[in-house]
């Protein structure tokens, strides 16, 4: 899990380097960790620290404010896990998973906007675009969930 998360972080970083100035990359790594935390039996405690360290590394590389993404990723992961486990087993459908994933990403976006504010209209436009890419990614995660037949296999809190 740690290796996979590290690869996801690196993929996110490479894409951000490649597309810097053209678009903001959605938080792949966070979405991957959220997906794994709600669909696998890997311990939540470990997932929390994976999300925290991933966010901290992102802070160091891109944000320049330690703790911003570390905190946002942790909050998003906990919220996603909590919402997923609020659902009865029969309600844990791919559509709900998509919504939970998107909510996790939106949490991070809103958190960043609250802390950093909106420095320019152009950046706000980029943030909105980033969120729309996250919608596509959430749908893909939902589809993967559907294809793997993981409905109902998620661990209960």
């Amino acid at each position, binding site marked *: 899990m740690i290796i996979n998360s590290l690869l996801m972080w690196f993929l996110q970083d490479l894409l951000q380097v*490649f597309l810097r100035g053209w678009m903001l990359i959605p938080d792949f790594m966070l979405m991957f960790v959220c997906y794994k935390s709600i669909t696998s039996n890997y311990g*939540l405690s470990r997932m*929390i620290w994976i999300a*925290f360290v991933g966010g901290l590394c992102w802070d160091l590389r891109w944000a320049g404010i*330690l703790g911003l993404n*570390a905190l946002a990723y942790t909050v998003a992961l*906990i919220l996603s896990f909590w919402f997923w486990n609020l659902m009865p087993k029969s309600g844990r459908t791919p559509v709900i998973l998509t919504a939970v994933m998107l909510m996790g990403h939106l949490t991070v976006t809103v958190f960043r906007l609250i802390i950093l504010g909106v420095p320019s209209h152009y950046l706000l436009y980029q943030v909105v675009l980033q969120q729309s890419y996250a919608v596509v990614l959430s749908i893909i995660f939902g589809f993967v969930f559907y294809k793997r037949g993981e409905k109902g296999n998620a661990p209960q809190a």
Partner: protein
Amino acid sequence: MFRQLNFAIVHGTIALLLGVTLLLSSANTNLTQRLSDFSERALRLPEFPAFTARRIVAKAVFWFDQGLNLKEELEVLRDENVKLKVLLAARQGDVKLGESDMLTAEITLRRPEDWWEKFRINKGSKEGIRPGFAVLNNGFLVGRVYKVSAHQAWVRLLTGLEMMVPAVVSETRDLGVVAGDGKGSLRLLYIPSESPVASGMNIETALVNEYLPAGLPIGTVGGVLEEKDGYSVFVVKSKAQLSRMYQVQIYIPSGGEK
């Protein structure tokens, strides 16, 4: 199950507290900046393929999508640059512009909370950059280098609250100071109210030192913002793309290079 949940709650709480502590204690500290610079250096090698791919794609986009228009624009800018250099050389006998050079650098970090204050570029002392060098975008002054390491440097923006640059209105030779408001706008201060300075006139740097020579374009005069104690404050319209700046040019004066 409950034990596992309690365990997760403890870990979650510790992570959240640690995150809040880091967030509150690290903003704008030198340590954060150093760690951030270090992470960029450490990842330079693994990120190299992405940088290379980006460069190739950017070139392809340049040549195939906008090639002709951009080439024409480049020619116009080149001509304008030559004219400016000639003009500067004529005005500043002591600044040998023929021996000066422009170095293009990419912006690698522009933090949202310091959006109008400063940014980091990917060129440093090894490339000949020194503190105090003028930084231009689109041919207009946008800031000055204030901190340099081997392969990167920090630039303080003209729009920030900490930067003030002596300036002259080209048409009337009135001297004033250009300063930022910290919100992305520029102002021309200390112009006497009776001065004939009017909207549309050109503003350029007045001589500060050899690193920031006279005659570098800053922008044009906009409307009067306020009049107080016999002096007017004017809005300055910069033609630099302050909100969409990905690259800047560093003015390297003669003798400034390594």
